[in-house]
């Protein structure tokens, strides 16, 4: 494969978007648009003639490398193209807040996490890990979220009381009505109380 075709292959592979011939031209200050076009075609022919599993296609003025349509079924079967089953860090954090403080509204989740969380809440709902369990009495009657049976099932718990409560949990993750949290301030508080 010629150096320019090699460079174009790498570019089409690594780019996060289809690339125009002008963008490909920027790869090498010494080449012309015509040379770039010829090299793209060389790459396309090479893929076709050598029986590669990918091909070069032009879509709306941009070039990209895609997997051959005939192979789609096998790829789906092997689940290499599906969305990951792993939860992202943001999802896990949001789930943690909801698990321990449910029922809880978006505003409270966002206050505890310190970031906007509506997208994450939607993803968790899509994955059936949380659901709307009611509405708060607060202004605007916001939705309240809780965890689903699937959540318990994935953790192998029969009910929410099986969630561990480690000593270092701060008050923020204590469910509102439970016994006093074990940090110093709270301990002082409890003493004063009794």
């Amino acid at each position, binding site marked *: 494969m010629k150096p320019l075709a090699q460079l174009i292959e*790498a570019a089409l*592979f*690594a*780019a*996060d*978007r*289809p690339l125009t011939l002008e963008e490909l031209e920027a790869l090498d200050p010494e080449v012309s648009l015509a040379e770039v076009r010829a090299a793209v075609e060389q790459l396309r022919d090479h893929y076709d003639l050598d029986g590669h599993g990918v091909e070069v296609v032009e879509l709306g003025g941009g070039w*990209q490398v*895609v*997997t051959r349509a005939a192979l*789609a079924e096998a790829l*789906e079967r092997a*689940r290499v*193209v*599906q*969305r*990951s*089953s*792993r*939860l992202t*860090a943001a999802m*896990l*954090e949001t*789930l*943690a*807040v909801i*698990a*321990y403080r449910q029922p809880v509204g978006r505003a409270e989740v966002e*206050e*505890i*996490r*310190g970031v906007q969380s509506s997208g994450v809440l939607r993803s968790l709902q*899509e*994955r059936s*890990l949380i659901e709307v369990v009611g509405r708060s009495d607060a202004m605007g009657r916001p939705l309240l979220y809780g965890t689903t049976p699937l*959540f318990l099932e*994935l*953790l*192998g718990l029969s009910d929410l009381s099986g969630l*561990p409560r*480690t000593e*270092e*949990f*701060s*008050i*923020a*993750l*204590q469910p*509102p*009505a439970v016994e006093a949290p074990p940090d110093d*301030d*709270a301990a002082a*508080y409890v003493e*004063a*109380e*009794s």
Partner: protein
Amino acid sequence: MTFPVATAPAFTAAPAPVLERESAFVVEVDGFSGPLDLLLHLIREQRLEISDIPVARIADQFLAVIDQLQLNQAADYLEMASRLLRLKIQMLLPRPGTEEGWEDPRAELVRRLLEYQQIKEVALWMGRAAERRGLMHPRGYLPPPPDLPPEPPTLDLLELLMAVDRVVAGILHPVLHSVVARPLDVEGATLRIETLLQNRTELTWAEALGPTPTITDVLSTLLALLELARRGLLRVAQPHPFTPLVIRREATRSAD
């Protein structure tokens, strides 16, 4: 931030001013990943043996640098500084007659510095490996996945607890205090007082509180009393200073 530190030997007499005047090289404290890093830097710059550090001189140079640190960075550096000063004093103490019985007070610091030096070497190796690897780019554009529902999620307790730790670590302190949730039960207290006052005309504060009151009971009762008094259903009086409160039913309006 940059701080001047001397390369030249600066022995104990009035070290700091000497250091500033000479300012033969400049130390950027922001560039150090910790007190051991700074210490190692001072040792290397002056081509000293880790196993035989001139503690007095290094301690003074170290102090000159951290003197100008911002407080929020300083805790770990200050701890190291005090350790160095302690060593400096220990080195000045008279040694026992024989060299054999003498244990070098620097041994622990030397061990840590050697360890840390290894860490730095590995970190350097890793940084280079990551850089080499960074030149190889993975696939950038992934066609949108087929329009299928996402894979059933995986989740385990450890992951969740890890997330809990992250959440807890990220919480700002003021938030911690705003959520001490111990709801006041003013309605309950009102009901209790009203019930008591149905059969009697007078109560003491202690009776109104009930047995073994918690602080929320106290607050709830106080609020209930104030509310009932406001509505004219009872009167709260303290006959003398420091005597118990007396709660009296308002005869005129008690019957609705």
